[in-house]
């Protein structure tokens, strides 16, 4: 299994992911790790429908995902790992999964969050999580689409690193 991209996007599978990233990274499998989505048959069915033919979607809870990620469960397939938020990423890191680089694709406007970029908004808790993860060695890059210019995180959040 080669995780070609780890993306944090609270809209999970949407236009930018399917139209922008999938053709570029040529992923054969999309693994969504979200307790909420795994329990929602509506969302799971829709996500399966939204990806091109030939791409499979697995929607896993955190508990199911950790052993699969640690042991490399999907053979030689190219995998896109989708997480709905920083909380899921932190949980995976705490459980022992290592990530080199994570794409911050989209954390959209919600109560409690303040915007730092067109596609990124963080709450206080999320900022704290970011600081912890960066200190732990995870590198973040912020690009909604592969063709965009990546903006370093410390430009968006002053005081990071």
């Amino acid at each position, binding site marked *: 299994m080669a995780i070609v991209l780890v993306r944090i996007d609270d809209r999970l*599978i*949407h236009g930018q992911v399917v139209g922008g990233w999938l053709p570029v990274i040529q992923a054969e499998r999309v693994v969504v790790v979200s307790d909420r989505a795994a329990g929602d048959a509506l969302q799971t069915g829709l996500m399966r*429908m939204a990806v091109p033919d030939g791409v499979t979607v697995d929607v896993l809870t955190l508990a199911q995902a950790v052993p699969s990620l640690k042991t490399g469960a999907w053979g030689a397939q190219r995998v896109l790992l989708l997480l709905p938020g920083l909380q899921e990423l932190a949980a995976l890191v705490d459980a022992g999964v290592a990530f080199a680089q994570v794409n911050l694709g989209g954390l959209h406007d919600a109560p409690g969050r303040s915007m730092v970029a067109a596609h990124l908004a963080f709450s206080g808790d999320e900022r704290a999580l970011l600081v912890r993860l960066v200190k732990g060695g995870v590198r973040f890059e912020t690009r909604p689409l592969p063709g965009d210019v990546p903006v370093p995180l410390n430009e968006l959040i002053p005081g990071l690193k």
Partner: protein
Amino acid sequence: MTLPRRDLVRIFFRSFLIQGLWTVQRVQNLGYLYSLWPVFRRLYPKREDRAYVGRFHAGYFSTHPYASGILIGVVAGLETDLAEGRGPKRDAILTARSAMSGPLSALGESFFWGTWLPFCAVFCWVLNGSAIRSTGWTIVLFVGLFNLPHLWVRSVGLWLGYRWKTEVVPHLVLFRVQKMLPYLAVGGMALAVWQAASIASGEMTVVQGLLWTVFFWGTLRLGVRPSFVALAVAGLSMAFAWGKTLL
């Protein structure tokens, strides 16, 4: 199912304005609220209730503009159920909405912008060169052909979304849109090759024209932006012509 047809028609026409006041923070929320307002007005005659519902639905919202018909229909149906007491909890409406908006945006992007638009363009290009020599009719064909699925998805999606609410999703799956796309794409490629061949039969041979086409495809595969390739073609052609005068 108690909304009069008049309201649904009003929502349908308002859904065309879903991008009418777009914001960076919450994208299409205002257009979405405007489209749903006839429903809120019908279900909640008191202004305070409307304010509450409006505030509830005012969060971040973004989906494909054509798929907004389905989403607005589903939300209208769920709100109607809720107001009449047989419905889901209010939070469930927002959960359903956010669960649906992402994948519908992906579907709309892959089908409409990614496949149907270029297919209509190349189809009209080929027809313009052969059967329809008139510019006006080509434009009419392009706009008309493209908008047929658009109007269909918006109207039928709104109607079925309103009637079946979230049960509309299993029916959407039956359409197997993703199965259709590669066939449309292959058809589009064939038409593009046909068009390249028919343009070429003017000043250069068909083989030369097809070779140029494949060459340009190659440069684009390497990642060069199309506009840069166009500029490069112009620049290099002029340089080449200038170089010939030196010889």
